[in-house]
């Protein structure tokens, strides 16, 4: 099976709450009616067992899922959370396993993990840059001697550049990475240290990775989908309210962040942290394995006004990554006291119902490209 089809099966459901599956109803067949109603009545959208989360840390709260199956489940059903030792999907364990197997069997494992691919590319890039430096040094040397006419210099430059280009193409085509002996030794050493920490008494690898959820993800999973074993209002109080139950800036920030998160999630987007692009969220149409994200979201107060440089720098970063920058302005439509009261009463639907969003797209405009 191709990777695409695999993904389509693996990420079949966009949310951790699944729709109930009903058999086909044949109108003129009473047996099918009976079976259908049986399925309908026994079916249930709620999870059999709620997912356990650990909330640790006092000042900075970490929300962690430790159970292996739950970690996998949350990732596969809506791409929630980030593996602490991986790029995003919690793959560290498999990654380590294949690494140790390689050590033992000395065979080449064909299933290279994404992290390894990135590493390979980076190595290739470093290699290429080293080559380039050599070429540049050579040219400088020639220049310093002063024996070159500009024409000659241009010719040599062209020649060297051709070589470099070929080098790069070969790298890509053959997956060439020059073995660096010192690097290899270091790598081995690192593995040994890891081994000491990672291998358990019986020689098996200990899972050290947990899935960390963003606070907004936690609220979404517990409040909107009810799949976590915590109470969302208590979580909000724990996160950002002091004993006097004031409407703090932290609380406000969390509430507007969640409002935006829920807004995009509920319209079908896969929302993930946009920290890589200097923004609050990025929106995938289906999920990271399927396509690149098209939008960067910045969540702002509706009365917020930043210096212009702030907008232009973010727009540059997003534009450089080929994403559109969306400024998501969130407005509070009810009084602070009212909202505090509702949070305390665990009436979060009223709380979030008193926020409304408005969106603005900020994009650099180039006159020369819009003149026809």
């Amino acid at each position: 099976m191709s990777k695409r089809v695999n993904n389509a099966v693996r990420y079949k459901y966009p949310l951790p709450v699944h729709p109930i599956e009903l058999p086909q109803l044949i109108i003129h067949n009473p047996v099918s009616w009976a079976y259908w109603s049986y399925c309908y009545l026994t079916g249930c959208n709620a999870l059999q067992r709620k997912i356990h989360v650990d909330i640790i840390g006092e000042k900075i709260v970490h929300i962690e899922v430790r159970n292996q199956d739950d970690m996998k489940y949350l990732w596969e059903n809506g791409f929630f959370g980030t593996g602490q030792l991986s790029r995003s999907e919690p793959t560290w364990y498999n990654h380590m396993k294949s690494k140790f197997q390689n050590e033992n069997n000395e065979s080449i494992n064909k299933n290279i993990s994404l992290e390894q691919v990135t590493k390979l590319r980076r190595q290739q890039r470093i290699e290429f840059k080293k080559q380039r430096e050599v070429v540049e040094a050579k040219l400088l040397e020639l220049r310093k001697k002063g024996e070159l006419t500009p024409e000659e210099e241009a010719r040599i430059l062209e020649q060297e550049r051709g070589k470099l280009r070929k080098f790069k193409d070969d790298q890509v085509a053959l997956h060439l990475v020059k073995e660096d002996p010192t690097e290899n030794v270091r790598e081995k050493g690192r593995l040994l240290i890891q081994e000491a920490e990672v291998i358990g008494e019986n020689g098996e690898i200990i899972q050290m990775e947990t899935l960390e959820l963003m606070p907004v993800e936690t609220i979404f999973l517990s409040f909107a989908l009810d799949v976590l074993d915590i109470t969302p209002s208590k979580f909000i109080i724990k996160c950002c309210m002091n004993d006097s139950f004031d409407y703090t800036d932290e609380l406000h920030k969390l509430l507007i962040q969640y409002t935006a998160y829920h807004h995009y999630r509920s319209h079908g987007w896969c929302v993930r942290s946009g920290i890589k692009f200097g923004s609050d969220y990025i929106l995938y149409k289906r999920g990271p394995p399927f396509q690149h994200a098209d939008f960067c979201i910045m969540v702002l107060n509706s009365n917020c006004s930043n210096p212009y440089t702030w907008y232009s720098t973010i727009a540059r970063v997003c534009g450089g990554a080929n994403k559109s920058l969306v400024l998501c302005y969130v407005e509070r439509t009810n009084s602070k006291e009212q909202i505090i009261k509702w949070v305390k009463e665990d009436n979060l639907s009223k709380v979030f119902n008193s926020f409304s969003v408005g969106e603005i797209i900020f994009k650099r405009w180039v006159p020369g490209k819009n003149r026809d």
Partner: protein
Amino acid sequence: MSSTTNQDTDLNLDEDEVIQDWSDISKIQNDNPILSIPKRGEKDYEPDGTDIQELMLYRAKKAMFDTLENSVRGSTVKSQVKGYYIPDKHVAMLPHAKGNFVQTMGETDKDGTLWLHFFEFLYLAERGTITPYWKAYGDNVELPLSIEDLYSYFKNQKEMDNFSIYAHLKRLGFIVRSSDQYIITKYNISFYPPLDFKSKTIGSMRNIVHRITSSFTSTGISLFNGIIFSHWHFYLKRYKSSPEIYESLNKLITHQKIPHSISDLRYEHNNVKEQSSYSTPTSLKISFNIWKPNPTFKKKYPELPDYQVVTYNKNVSNQSFPTYNELRTLFKSLDYKFNFIEDSSNVDFWNKNTYNNGILRENILDELTNHPRNKIKNTEQVGKKQSVNKKKTPRKELPPHIQQLKRLKNGYRSFLLAIMDNGIISFAKISEADFGSENVWYVPPPNGIVARPNQNGRNKNKHRNTQRKEDKQSKK
């Protein structure tokens, strides 16, 4: 170290980022003005301490200097006209205007005198098209003015910024006119028909109905949300598909209603006056209307502008970037070619939806073409021919998910923000977006049948439809 090979990695440079070689430009100008400037070879990124580099830099600088020094400058004396600055009114007057600029700039009065805004006057003076003179109103004394003199007549920073932005856009070929100032008569060009009693009453009726229904729906929705987001809800309600789950979730957060169509726009426009007390006043306002270069442009009966420009100085302390409510006020005041409207690419659409001084543009054009003495007839035919050509290329119907992505990326109403930063001008396009009225959820294929994911745009709808049908059947 100079990294002369850096270009290797960014081969796809934009055309405007390539460095031009000025070394022989003065020769080119003399021989053939149409030839373009040749591209320079390699770029040295850092000083490498060699004499060769020093020499190359010196040569490049000298080439530029020589070009500026040796090139022929000034304007043809024949075509030059006198322009008079009227200090009391801060405008300028051209009694005998001639030249192409008359078609797109200033206002012409009954006697054929061209009146220019100060920024237009300065722009033309800087180009050498007109010779500026000082003239007190009703006085016969005229004094020649220098460009420095003219610059000293700016009233404030804002005016100077606006001039720079105006001149920048003009030099790039756009047709630019002030959107709010006028000298002789206020000329109004609008997308919106003039308000009459009928549309007013309909508007207010709609408004009342809207208020009543919205109050009902809002209480309804809050009740609904109370149920959806309770703990036992997933045990009671049975969802048969993911879209149903999404639909139950997306009623929670309210989002701004943004006009998508003509009727939305007109409805909002009719209610702006009533709501003006709600809208936030803003220090920013639309300064210029701009049109893409167009040989058939008529300043007496212009089309709706292609863009509207708000100018903004980044370094003035009393001006801050607009907040969301200020932006909304700006969006409401926009009046241009709303190119997001569905059939706006249709040729006749804009003539049918543009009001020049309250009169439908289509009627004005008809009158002009039918008028036997009118010369405009010819130009009008040229215009029509062009539009016929445009019509011939049929628009490709894009698949729905691409159309949706386009809507999301382009947004709806938009304006250009021209940012002045110590003489450097940049532009940002600010548009209203509406993610709240688009749904992008993925519908899993029923019963484990694997759909080819690259078709999912269309499959999605099919699935949704079939599922809806099934739902209906099941309810029966």
